[in-house]
């Protein structure tokens, strides 16, 4: 492991209050400072990379709230990414743990498999089986991890599940940019609505939009979980996929994917034939809200009379430093007010696959986030990451819709009546 960044940590603890796992557990080993300290000891060979060590590395959400909080400039993101593979290699995992991890890695990066699983999930929820199993207490008896997976199943409609966007959508009026959109694996299945909204907004703002149809995962899940090789392979394939279209900008509407795309330059810097290409590629990557904030608006926006609580997705705010742009985009909608929340820097507990592998901590964090969001009395919660969307929805009171900011912009550009989410429509009408 590269020990240079380890030496930057002066043990001041400024990162502690931003770290969700520390806030929940109060344990030094569950904090950035503690994890860095252990990594340092491991790098010096003073402790072995064993189960206890691995446990505290695994429990890190990778939310990176600790990075901007650090006055000493410690690159925790680099540290955790370089230690995870080591843990994967050296820490023997129990059978159940292995199986569960394999299930996730076998499921999430593959849209078709995921779609199948979701369809099964849909049948499961629609058929009343879910209710039945809950009533019988079967769910409560599942191991907590499987329970988490079960609880995450979003209320997807059949239509959203199979809606997909065309490979190319021409921009309206004089075309300003050629934009590629990463459809995202989990996103494509669970959030067809978000992708459709993204395409519509970009096209309306004069961008030709290309959405490669390859079933390609960007590798974010793998990289963030320490599966280095897998991550690098997926990165190369993704670059090749987008290179086909000669794009000005590559847009992501999932924060986790966006930050992975932006890291390709680093991940592949050692690869002779990909280093340059990856660098050039990463330079083109924007989050959808970043691009929209950069592009002077062309379209007229209809008022939306809504109170919106905005939740900073970790991979957007901390990993990409994108905080003001989503707010700007939202504020460009007349009638809509954006509200910041208490403990904004604290992760909602979704981060990557965290809510699946560390469900107890994730649940406490999710509940806490939902409480802070609700305290602002919102009509709608907006967040720019699929994982957050799923996680937060679990804990919010009924009647508060969780959306991606681009969905609100889409609704505003198209006029409220066209907005797809039925209950939001009702809400808006009721206020008139």
């Amino acid at each position, binding site marked *: 492991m590269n020990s240079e960044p380890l030496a930057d940590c*002066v043990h001041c603890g400024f990162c502690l209050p931003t770290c969700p796992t520390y806030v929940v557990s109060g344990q030094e*080993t569950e904090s950035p400072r503690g994890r860095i300290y252990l990594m340092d000891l491991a790098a010096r060979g003073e402790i072995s990379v064993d189960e206890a060590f691995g446990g505290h590395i695994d429990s890190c959400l990778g939310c990176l709230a600790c990075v901007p909080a650090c006055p000493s400039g410690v690159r925790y993101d680099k540290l955790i990414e370089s230690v995870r593979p080591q843990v994967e290699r050296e820490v023997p995992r129990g059978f159940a743990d292995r199986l569960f991890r394999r299930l996730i890695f076998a499921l999430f990066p593959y849209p078709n498999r995921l779609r199948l699983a979701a369809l099964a999930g849909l049948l499961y929820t629609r058929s009343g089986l879910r209710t039945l199993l809950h009533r019988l207490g079967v769910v409560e008896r599942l191991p907590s991890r499987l329970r988490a997976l079960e609880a995450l199943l979003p209320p997807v409609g059949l239509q959203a599940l199979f809606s997909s966007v065309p490979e190319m959508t021409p921009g309206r009026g004089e075309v300003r940019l050629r934009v590629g959109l990463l459809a995202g694996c989990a996103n494509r299945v669970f959030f067809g609505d978000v992708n459709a909204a993204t395409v519509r907004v970009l096209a309306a703002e004069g961008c030709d939009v290309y959405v490669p149809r390859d079933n390609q995962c960007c590798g974010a899940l793998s990289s963030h979980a320490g599966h280095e090789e897998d991550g690098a392979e997926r990165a190369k394939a993704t670059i090749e996929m987008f290179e086909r279209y000669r794009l000005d900008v590559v847009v992501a509407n999932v924060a986790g994917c966006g930050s992975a795309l932006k890291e390709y330059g680093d991940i592949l810097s050692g690869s002779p034939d990909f280093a340059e290409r990856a660098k050039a590629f990463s330079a083109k990557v924007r989050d959808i809200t970043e691009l929209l904030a950069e592009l002077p608006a062309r379209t007229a926006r209809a008022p939306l009379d809504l109170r919106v609580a905005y939740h900073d997705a970790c991979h957007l705010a901390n990993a990409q430093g994108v905080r003001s742009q989503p707010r700007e985009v939202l504020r460009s909608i007349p009638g809509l007010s954006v509200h910041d929340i208490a403990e904004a820097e604290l992760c909602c507990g979704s981060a990557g696959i965290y809510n699946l592998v560390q469900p107890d901590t994730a649940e406490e964090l999710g509940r806490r986030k939902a409480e802070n969001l609700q305290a602002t009395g919102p009509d709608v919660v907006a967040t720019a990451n699929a994982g957050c969307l799923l996680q937060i929805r679990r804990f919010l009171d009924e009647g508060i819709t969780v959306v991606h900011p681009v969905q609100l912009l889409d609704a505003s550009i198209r006029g409220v009546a066209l907005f797809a989410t039925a209950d939001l429509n009702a809400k808006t009408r009721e206020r008139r």
Partner: protein
Amino acid sequence: MTGDVRAEFVAALGADAVLADPVELRAYECDGLTGFRVVPALVLLPRTAAAVADAVRICARERIPFVARGAGTGLSGGALPVANGVVISLQRLRSIIEVDPVNRRAVVEPGVTNLDISRAAAPHGLYFAPDPSSQQVCTIGGNIAENSGGAHCLKYGFTVHHVLSADVVLPDGTTAVLGADSPHLGGYDLLGAFIGSEGTLGIATRITVKLLPKPAAVRTLVADFPSVEQAGDAVTSIIAAGIVPAAAEMMDAVAIEAVQAALDAGYSRDTAAALIVELDGPQAEVDIQFAEVRQLCQNHGTTNIRVAGDEHERALVWKGRKAAFAAVGRISPDYIVQDGVVPRTLLATALTRIGELAAAAGLRVSNVFHAGDGNLHPLVLYSEAAGELERAEELSRAIAELCVDLGGSLSGEHGIGTDKACSMPRQFSEDDLATMALLRAAYDTDGICNPGKVLPTPRLCGEKPGVHRPHPLEAAGLIERT
């Protein structure tokens, strides 16, 4: 420690509150002063005050030494564990029990951070005055133990001036309330003695603090000076004019460079010293005195004055100042923060002498300090990898003792802890220290509460700790003593 005792801790506190894995214990082996490391036998994470008392009772019965730990940001090794002892972390006692706007006070658990108290009070227009630079992370328990100050203690005083009472678990496992609902109480000021005792007299488990109303007006300026000495003179003249600034803080060029690299807080990069002066209080008073301060800075040769235009700019000035220590991590792999105090009128002398000591040691020293009260924070920069640790420690000790020789103190706010215990004989006579030991023994008969801290011990300092030198004022016949 026997398995039976460990089992008893588990029975009393729950399994998830007892850490015994060797890897996990290592994470607790030091606090903010990483040069000292001791691995404890156990770490306890109680969730309630009652559980703290349970844990201490077991310790007392078994004569197991214990060390309370807050956020572990202490800079004197106060929370350094004791081998074969337990660390009692207060990080799970983090609720704000009550904010009482009418009586302007808050009741909190010890693990609540300093800043969270102010956050909870803010809706009522109130705040908790002590503001150590580490306020976003350090705990009120740690503040009490160290009698922490902050940039604004020149006008508002230290933690001891803002705590009304504390429920304390004494080293024998019994509990007592120190202090009362008002500052008037019968008998000795046992709370006052507890505050600043560095965790050696017991563990505070519930604390009532005073809250102050936010000042009606606040004005802040940053004045650049061609030398640190000139800036120091400006401060002296401001205070001589009968002005008590809320804060008067100074940073030298090295510190400014680090802060600007960490976050652009708008400090001029090409100046030798930046002096932050903040006035607060009634609008009329602040306006009048602010004009005087500007004039005095000008009289002392300031090259540029930047006045914070709004709350945002002001916050940025302070964010920069408060991040200064940690930001120095960007320009030096390692550093030691010193904390000596000199009479304000000797600031210039002290700084010159520190410069000489640093040159002689061949190390860089950056100065960030509370200029208003003469509390210096020389940062000794070094590289452990380059084998400079020992020289740095030597220099650091020399600076602390220089402060004593100038009629000041070893520590203004970070405490003696492990770090400076062996220098105590420089500042205090054997009788002074023996008398302090009486106070300690009154609270802690068996010597199990954070042993080895504050007072020099033969184990730590060798049989003959440094010899006491008479205080310079004694030597000059100005002070008498036996």
